[in-house]
């Protein structure tokens, strides 16, 4: 297990502090990685790695590539037998998308809803 965090500089959501990637990773069940990406260029802006599995790093690469090549849908969930890759474009900044990669669990809908909520949070 590894934990490498670059703290995002973000302020409040309706007065409350916007969670960092580390906090997002803590909240989303079985989270393996959380990242902000720039979909147009497939650039990873910052990431928080919970689990250093090379398959997770590869999954992030593929997710950003999918975002770049597929006219960048605002919401996307990719399912494999082992992993869930959740992509949600930031509501207030279309140049950023939140990517969260989790291990498969029964809480899929909950994880997707959380990621959406975090990506929709207003950065002030």
């Amino acid at each position: 297990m590894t934990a490498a965090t670059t703290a995002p500089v973000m302020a409040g959501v309706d007065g409350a502090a916007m969670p960092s990637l580390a906090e997002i990773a803590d909240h989303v069940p079985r989270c393996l990685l959380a990242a902000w990406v720039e979909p147009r260029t497939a650039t990873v802006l910052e990431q928080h790695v919970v689990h250093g599995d090379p398959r997770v790093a590869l999954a992030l690469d593929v997710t950003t590539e999918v975002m770049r090549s597929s006219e960048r849908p605002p919401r996307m969930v990719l399912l494999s037998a082992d992993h869930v890759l959740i992509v949600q474009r930031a509501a207030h900044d279309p140049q950023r998308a939140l990517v969260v990669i989790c291990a498969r669990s029964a809480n899929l809908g909950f994880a997707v809803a959380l990621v959406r909520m975090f990506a929709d949070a207003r950065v002030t």
Partner: protein
Amino acid sequence: MATVPVTLEVLQMLEQVPANECGALVRQRTDGTMAGALLVEHGRVCWAMSDRYPRRLTDLLVAESDTLTREQINEVFALCRRDRVPLGETLVARGLVSLPVLHRVLFRHTCEALDCLLREDSELWTWVEHSGYGYHPMLTFSTAELLTGIHALEHPTIAARALATLGAALGPEQRGFAIQRTRDARLPLAQIGCEDLDLVEFADLATQANDVMTTASTVAIEVVVAMIGERACASWVEDDLLFLILCDGELAFNRLLAQVATLTRRP
């Protein structure tokens, strides 16, 4: 089988016919003779004819029905010709054939005749306007239906498999289609409820889903759910078939996600 670009060319031309007009797209050979025509009413095809197409509607109807005879059809045909009313609707109104059977037979006839017509070398198409009959919408066909039907003629076994898989996967108020992925093209082989998608939408959805699945499959992704425009779209691949389920509405994404999650859940 007509080539894919030719099929698309004609169907795109059909979509450019003004939505409220009725008439015929007539195909002429270079020597001036008529190869055949498509009758079009309000953007939908009512009938296709080709002088290369050997089957008659009567043959197909009799083959599909246990009780209908040629004599009965000929009698109704004469009546329809005299009174200038549509044959199909009259057969249904008299209880000689059911609407689903007539729909199936007309669809087959239209696709096969159109396929023959598209194989003509000529590029000359002429639009001839005329007044419409007011056909039952179920007895006319959209470009999406025809495109799928023509490709299914060439691959009947795979098309039947695609349709069965799609039918089993669709939930209430959902629609979808299946695409055969070949090296050079993506051919629609089956659709349920997608009759009213125009060809551009059809192609865009297929292209986006195919691009995503091609990239995502490198990390063993089996199903993708995405918002494309205003609709939620789930896609997955089985052998060389790409399936798409479309779902509209406020909670479409979540409903679709819950539905397709079971496709990849480990026992």
